[in-house]
């Protein structure tokens, strides 16, 4: 029976076979190899090394990966190579090799499996992966551009008041979060400071954020009192968007006299700002109000804080207080502590320090956006 004919089993095996010395010199090849590559036995046996059959690039791979593997572990598996045929064609193949010892020393037995279709499939996979990577990079760039458009491009300024802001998007910065802030002039000598957080993330949240920002700017021209402005935003959101909501804090900032400012604000479900006096007493200011975009007539009200020299008022989003480390929250205590400690710095430094502290607390990869705006009245001129 043919299956007991070992010569035939070798010569006409289902794969090409080569035996070489440890140095790679070809000692024997089977008929399947000769038919596949078009070489005559005496072209290769005793003439060529295995690596001579490879492309130059494949040769480097052979020397830097395959040969060391073979020396180190006595075998190598599933190495992809291109064998250069007698007529110069490249024949993609997968290689398995094993070192055998006999009385004459060590030989390497190599089996080559033609892998043309597989290689084409692999190339297709590589192309798909490159496309996926490119599209991911585009998505990230788009998200970052969009994110940047939702906060003021330059640090906000109000005459005679020190204004600082800091913002850190969630995660690795490849998603658009829902936090925003804005500072703009509403009437001669009066300014608006807005900070908010739209539910959700991504393109949907960005659209709501954009609507909230321009609606508030328009509403600030129609109504004067902060709670009235938030009411206009509430109506617009219910009318135009339906099933979404946000928390917003709107503050009207105006000079009270030469040295102090009056801040009147209304919170639509937004965390209350922290007031820190020049002496270092810190407390939450104002009364909570209702979230925007849910009720037709949400309970909202105004509170007023007077900022004397050296006092500060800090607005922030819940990315600060709800920053998480395991099961623990950053919390209000830490927030008050950092603001008190940092109070003698300028407003920008205070805002940046708070954001950095929250980021560090979470091990550098915050799960939510973090936005902070700090207003500080400069000290008395010396």
């Amino acid at each position, binding site marked *: 029976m043919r299956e007991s004919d070992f010569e035939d089993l070798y010569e006409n095996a289902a794969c090409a076979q080569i035996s070489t010395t440890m140095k790679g010199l070809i000692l024997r090849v089977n008929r399947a190899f000769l038919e596949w590559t078009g070489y005559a036995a005496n072209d290769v046996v005793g003439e060529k090394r295995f690596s001579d059959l490879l492309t130059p*690039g494949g*040769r480097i791979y052979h020397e830097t990966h395959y*040969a060391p593997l073979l*020396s*180190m*572990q006595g075998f190598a598996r*599933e190495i992809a190579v291109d064998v250069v045929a007698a007529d110069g064609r490249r024949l993609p193949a997968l290689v398995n090799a094993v070192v055998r010892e006999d009385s004459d020393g060590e030989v390497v037995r190599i089996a080559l499996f033609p892998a043309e279709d597989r290689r084409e499939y692999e190339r297709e996979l*590589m192309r798909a992966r490159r496309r996926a990577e490119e599209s991911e990079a585009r998505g990230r760039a788009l998200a970052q551009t969009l994110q940047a458009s939702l906060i003021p491009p330059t640090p906000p300024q109000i005459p005679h008041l020190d204004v600082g802001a800091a913002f850190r998007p969630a995660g690795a910065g490849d998603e658009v979060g829902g936090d925003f802030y804005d500072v703009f002039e509403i009437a001669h000598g009066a300014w608006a400071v807005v900070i908010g957080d739209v539910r959700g993330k991504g393109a949907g949240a960005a659209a709501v954020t954009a609507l909230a920002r321009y609606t508030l700017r328009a509403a600030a021209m129609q109504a004067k009192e902060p709670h009235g402005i938030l009411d206009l935003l509430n109506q617009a959101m219910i009318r135009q968007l339906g099933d979404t909501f946000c928390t917003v804090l709107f503050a009207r900032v105006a000079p009270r006299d030469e040295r102090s400012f009056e801040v009147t604000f209304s919170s639509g479900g937004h965390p209350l700002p922290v007031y820190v006096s020049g002496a270092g007493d810190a407390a939450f200011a104002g009364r909570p109000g209702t979230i925007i975009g849910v009720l037709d007539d949400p309970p909202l009200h105004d509170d007023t804080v007077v900022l004397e020299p050296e006092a500060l008022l800090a607005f922030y989003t819940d990315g600060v207080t709800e920053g998480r480390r395991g099961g623990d929250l950053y919390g209000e205590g830490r927030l008050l502590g950092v603001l008190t400690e940092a109070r003698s710095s300028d407003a920008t430094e205070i805002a940046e320090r708070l954001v950095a502290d929250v980021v560090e607390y979470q091990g550098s990869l915050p799960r939510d956006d973090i936005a902070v705006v700090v207003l500080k009245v400069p000290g008395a001129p010396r």
Partner: protein
Amino acid sequence: MNVIERNNISFLGPEDGQPMLFAHGFGCDKNMWRFVYPEFEDNYRIVLFDHVGAGGSDISAYDREKYSSLDGYAQDVLEICEQLDLRDVIFVGHSVSSMIGALAVKRDASRFASLIMVSPSPSFINDGDYIGGFNRSDIEELLESLDSNYLGWSSAIAPVIMGNPGRPQLAEELTNSFCRTDPDIARHFAHVTFTSDNRADLPHVKVRTLVLQCSDDAIAPVSVGRYVHEHVPDSEFALLDATGHCPNLSAPEQTVAAMKSFL
């Protein structure tokens, strides 16, 4: 930054021995010295390390910009010498790492006693009269070959350090592991390795140097080894009767003998 963790450093031999710092080349990790360092273990302090991105190194320390030239790797070598306070170092580098060693010596020779370059090539790409052995298109082909060979790579497989000396009978799950690394890093390192041209740096190697050359090396031919010998001022040349690019694996006895007679 802790270089011991970053570069997966291991020590052998007497603590007060003269340090031999072994650097692996492209494709493998520090295990490729396993047939060589035991021969020096009695008399020298053996320091083995993985380049960042290879073997058991801290992959998170991989900085594409830093490692976009061999200088980044040379900086790591100097940092290792400084942090471990190694003096009078015998630097043993294989292939690209022999150039990394040359760059480290060029930047600060004060910590080095000598340099052993195993299968060095200052430039793999042909340039006029200089025959590096390859064209640019060959290097592109290598990168494609890497892509194809790393398809089976899985980030779930942690690098494994191999156990006993001699040719080890490895457990199934260790198959090919010492040549595994993150495919993106391998690609980048390959690009940096095979497109670097450090010919102009050779005259600045101001320590005693040994060039170890295989008689039959398909990627760094004898003429390239001789070129290195001719351009490194205080260098000796040893031709090994060996095939391939890794005499430390294919001809460890000859490699060790040549190193010993140099030292």
